[in-house]
């Protein structure tokens, strides 16, 4: 007779199949439009991820990919969820102190990237 607990699945090679709709993942939360993080905003893990345990699959996946800078839209494509959902999940991880967000400087929104940044981009692209 087996009374064993259901095994917990860890360290999967592939993303788990989602068993619940995305609005359950985010607890039904959405955020009002207007001042949302642009979808190219980058996230990176903080030092505190070392002490993070028992995270849900989606959170753990985000933590894994964010060891290098990764954008909201990439996270969304990887998880198979829209950016609006990624914003909520990332927001939770930022609140928990596990992620840093690197949004584009606000001045870009009005006038585009600064000449200094464009120059740096140009030099980097020419060096490829």
């Amino acid at each position: 007779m087996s009374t064993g607990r259901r095994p917990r699945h860890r360290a999967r090679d592939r993303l788990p199949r989602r068993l619940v709709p995305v609005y359950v993942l985010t607890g039904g939360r959405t955020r009002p439009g207007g001042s949302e993080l642009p979808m190219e905003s980058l996230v990176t893990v903080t030092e505190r991820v070392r002490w993070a345990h028992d995270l849900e699959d989606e959170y753990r996946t985000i933590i894994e990919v964010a060891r290098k800078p990764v954008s909201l839209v990439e996270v969304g494509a990887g998880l198979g969820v829209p950016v609006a959902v990624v914003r909520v999940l990332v927001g939770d991880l930022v609140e928990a102190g596990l992620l840093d967000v690197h949004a584009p400087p606000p001045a870009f929104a009005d006038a585009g990237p600064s000449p200094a940044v464009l120059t740096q981009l140009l030099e980097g692209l020419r060096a490829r």
Partner: protein
Amino acid sequence: MPGDIGTDPGPVPLKILIAGGFGAGKSTLVRSVSEIASLHTEEPVTIASVGVDDLRAVPDKTMTTVALDFGRIGVGDSLVLYLFGTPGQDRFWFMWDELVRGAVGGVVLVDVRRIAESFAAVDFFESRDVPFVVAMNAFPGTERFTPGDVHHALRLRADVPVMPMDARARSSCLSTIIRLVEHALDRSNVVRFPRSARR
């Protein structure tokens, strides 16, 4: 050091829009030049909320999705450049408005055999004063057209660069992107110097 993140000011995301008519080669360009397998996302939008920037699901509105192809080029340690292939359908132009905010600029891909399909993209960038270049994709039978022909046919401003390009060739795509950044830099210098000089 790889993986050692958090002590510097952090990476800066940048983006370029790849626009043009249906079948002009937008996805091919993104795929050619991206360092990751180019990715695809479907973003839900509410048709009735066009221009309102509102993604809430309200039952009496029509929900649909907008497809976006995107790729990525890491530039040094601190810059990450994203390329977004814009959705072709006119009814999704409000999506472009979010995409174009803060962008370096745009590449309008042209199939010169169907040049009229590029007008919409040209108008979009012109009306928002966003720097753009026009790239003539190398489809068979298009060799006889010159950049001057395209410049004239699209009634472009004198300073807008037009160049031949092969969306299948990485180096050709990269040259086009470099030309766009040069153009954006020229424009930003022209626009910004008078502003700061007034102080």
